[in-house]
């Protein structure tokens, strides 16, 4: 449906890729660990390696949680939105098929938050 308006109503998206000057947005969520309330957001060049995402950003944010130290990284299930994928740590976001405003969700089997609460 088009917006009903008294004059032409068309604008550039407030978060269009061009506005990020060579970077792209990325959202990251640890499933069933809702202590962190919501996913966090990053703006990174598409050339950023996936290992940097895990070793730096994911670790910085989530290591506060007692489950974090117990993660078996070989069993982690990765999703880009609802699609399961297997990231290549050594390769870039782009090469892992991760684009602007993609949502990376990871599930850690057997770990369901504090006292299994999902938090």
């Amino acid at each position: 449906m088009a917006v009903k308006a008294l004059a032409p109503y068309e604008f550039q998206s407030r978060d269009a890729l061009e506005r990020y000057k060579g970077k792209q947005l990325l959202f990251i969520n640890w499933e069933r660990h809702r202590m962190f309330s919501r996913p966090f957001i990053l703006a990174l060049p598409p050339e950023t390696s996936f290992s940097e995402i895990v070793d730096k950003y994911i670790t910085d944010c989530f290591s506060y949680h007692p489950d974090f130290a117990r993660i078996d990284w070989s069993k982690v299930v990765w999703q880009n939105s609802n699609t399961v994928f297997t990231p290549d740590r050594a390769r870039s976001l782009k090469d892992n098929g991760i684009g602007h405003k993609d949502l990376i969700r990871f599930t850690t089997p057997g770990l369901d938050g504090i006292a299994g609460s999902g938090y």
Partner: protein
Amino acid sequence: MQMDLRTVSITPLRQTFGHLARRMGADKPASRYVEATMDLQPVENFHFRPTWEPELDIFDPARTRITMKDWYALKDPRQYYYGAWTQARGRMQETAEGDFELVDELGLAAAYPQAGKEEAFKVFLPLRHAAWGSNINKAYVSAYGYGIAISQAACYASMDQLGIAQYVTRLGMAFGDIEALAEAKQAWLDAPEWQELRRYTEDLMVEKDWFEVMVAQDFALEGLLYPLVYERFNDRLNAAHGPVFSMLTRFQREWYAETCKWTDAVLKAAAADNPENKDRLATWIAGWRERAIRALEPIARLAFGADAPVVMEEAVAALNARAVKAGIPL
């Protein structure tokens, strides 16, 4: 545990809000008017463009050709925030209520000479529609004006005009004359004497520049209409027939005397901001004044007969003097 909190003497950590301290250049207590007004309208990071005007922001200084370095320089010398305004009007309505009751109690309306009543009704009653038109035009200024200083004062003025339209209606009712209201409406719609005024009011309803609407409605038109009708015409009725109408239009007179201070202060501040404003205001005033004179001439003739030109001339001179005093030589 009994506490006597009144005995506690605490030094405040700050005196006022950050935006007011920056505006005043010091952290000092601000008046309730200042707290209720200054720098409150959002100016940035609007989420969406209006579907009714996609080319501009929700609040946009481009809705008038007047420019201001500080839109809050358009402040109200009466310092009306809602509480001050409504209490001032509350007092005025109490007086008006007393006047209407007294006229009723003493049977002053019934005792008023028929000729005087007819003369008065012819001039006063159609003005309920003029006030209604004024309400719409002031509502426009309030809706699309930039900054809370102007939007709130215009909002109160717009409600004042609704009140005036209702007081004029009550004037007809006080004389028990509902039919006279219907006749007055017909006159407003059809009688030649009222058409230029109605045209003036309707033309302003499609004028886009809110500041120009204010100049034309509040300054040029009402700056002539109120002195002519609610002052001079009342004087004439008082002298000829007695003061009943003067009592029942007291609200309008007080309102005008008070509201002029605001109108003039706004014009003065805008003219003082930059020379382009000053020129533009002078052009607007001169143009709308000529139209207002044309619109009011037939009504002046109704009211003053052969004296109309003289009375009008005096009113125009007074209006010009107000403009000059506001720093806008015409």
